[in-house]
C-alpha cells in the first residue's frame, strides 16, 4: 500500500494549539492546489489494566493503545510502544477485549478532518479531540505518496514535498511547525514495504510527542 508520513503539530514554546491554526493549515493546503475530497477519521484508545492491587500497577504496561484507521474499516491495531509490539487484528478483537475485562478504555481520541488530493499525494489534516468533546488537543497531518510502497525509495521525494509544504506554511507565520520523526519500524518487526501497521506505529509515536508537548506546556505555565 502507499506509504505515508504522519506529522504532529509542535507549538512554539509558550504557545498552544487552537482552531485558528487548524484553519490556516487547511487554507495552506488549498493554496498549493490541494483539492478537498471528503472527511476522514481515526480513533485511538488508551487502555488501562484493571487491577485488584493498584500497588502492582508498575508490572503492567501503561502505553497500551488501540487504533482504528479509516483505510482499514474491518481491522483494529494494538500497539505497546515500550515493548515495540504492533498487532493487526480483525475489528472483533475489541469485543474480545471487552469480554476479557482485563483492560478497559481509559481515554479515547478522534483524529478527524478533511483529506485533499494533490497530484500523486494525498494529504489529510485533522484535529485531535477527545471523543464526545470539541476540546482541541492537537493537529495532525498525513502525507501519503500513492505510487510507491517502499519507505526507502520514496524518502527523497517525500523530503522534497515536505520542503515545499513547510515553505508554504512558514509564510503564514504560525506559532509552531509540523514535525515528523520516523519511528524505527524494524524495532517493531516491520519491513520497508509500507502497511497499515506502520501507520498505527506512527500514530502511537505522535501521541507520545503530543503528550510530551502538552506536559512541557503545563510545566512552563507552572
Amino acid at each position, binding site marked *: 500500500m502507499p506509504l505515508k508520513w504522519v506529522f504532529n503539530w509542535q507549538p512554539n514554546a509558550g504557545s498552544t494549539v487552537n482552531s485558528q491554526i487548524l484553519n490556516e493549515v487547511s487554507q495552506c493546503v488549498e493554496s498549493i492546489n490541494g483539492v478537498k475530497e471528503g472527511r476522514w477519521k481515526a480513533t485511538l484508545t488508551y487502555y488501562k489494566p484493571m487491577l485488584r492491587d493498584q500497588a502492582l500497577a508498575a508490572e503492567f504496561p501503561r502505553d497500551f493503545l488501540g487504533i482504528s484507521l479509516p483505510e482499514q474499516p474491518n481491522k483494529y491495531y*494494538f500497539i*505497546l510502544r515500550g515493548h515495540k509490539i504492533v498487532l493487526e487484528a480483525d475489528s472483533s478483537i475489541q469485543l474480545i477485549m471487552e*469480554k476479557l475485562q482485563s483492560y478497559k478504555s481509559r481515554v479515547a481520541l478522534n483524529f478527524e478532518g478533511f483529506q485533499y488530493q494533490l497530484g500523486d499525494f494525498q494529504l489529510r489534516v485533522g484535529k485531535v479531540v477527545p471523543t464526545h468533546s470539541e476540546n482541541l488537543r492537537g493537529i495532525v497531518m498525513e502525507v501519503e505518496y500513492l505510487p510507491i510502497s517502499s519507505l526507502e525509495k520514496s524518502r527523497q521525494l517525500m523530503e522534497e514535498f515536505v520542503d515545499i509544504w513547510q515553505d508554504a506554511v512558514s509564510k503564514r507565520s504560525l506559532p509552531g511547525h509540523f514535525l515528523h520523526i520516523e519511528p524505527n519500524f524494524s524495532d517493531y518487526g516491520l519491513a520497508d514495504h509500507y502497511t497499515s501497521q506502520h501507520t498505527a506505529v506512527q500514530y502511537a509515536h505522535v501521541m507520545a510527542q503530543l503528550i510530551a508537548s502538552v506536559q512541557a506546556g503545563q510545566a512552563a505555565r507552572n
Partner: protein
Amino acid sequence: MECVVQGIIETQYVEALEILLQGLCGVHRQRLGVHEICLKSGPNLGFVASEVRLLCDIEQAEPTWTVKHVGGAMRGAGAEQISVLVRSMVESKASKNVLRLFYALGYKVDHELLRVGFTFHFQRGAPITVTVSSVNKMLKLHATDEAVPVTPGIQLVEVTAPATSENYNEVVAAVSSFCEYLAPLLHLSKPGASTGVVPTAAAAAASLMSDGGGTTL
C-alpha cells in the same frame, strides 16, 4: 455465538468416518494442524480471571493466528432441553505478534494442545464444520515437534456451527439433524457430557470400508 457437540471415536474407525463424511458433505476434507495455546490472566489482572485462546494454523505455509474467546453457555430450562451446546464465541484473525502481546499484557500459558486431523466445511441448513482430530500435548513449552497424544487410540470429533441469538434454534436443529447420520459410528453430545464410544462403531465401520460408503447405514 456457536452451537457445539462433541464425541470420541477410536482411531481405527476414523477412516470409515471420513468416508461417511465425504459422502454426506459432498466436499473434500481439509487437513488440520492447529497449535492451541490457552492463556489465563495473571493473578492480579482483572477483577475476575479471564481466559483467551490463541490458535496457530501450522498447516499453512505461513502460520496464521486466530484469537478466540469462548464464553458461557446459554442457560435456562430451554437450554437444558437442547442436546446441542449454545455458547458465546468471538474470533479474530491476528498478526503473528499476538502471543508476545498477550504475554506483555500479563497473560500466561495455562495449557497448550496440538490438534492434528482433518475438517469438513459444508452447508446443510447452516454452515457446519466437522473436525476430527487427535489431541496432543507438548512435553516442552511450545514444542509442537515433540507432541504426544493425550488419549492414544482415541480421536475427538467436534461439530460446530456459527449462530446468532435470532437463529440459534434453526442452527441447533441443523446440527442435531446432521448428527443423526453419524450415530452408527459415534455419539455426539454437549461438551462435558460424553457417553464414550458406541457399540455399533465396529460394524458400521466395516460396512463403510467394505464398499467405500455405498451402503446406507
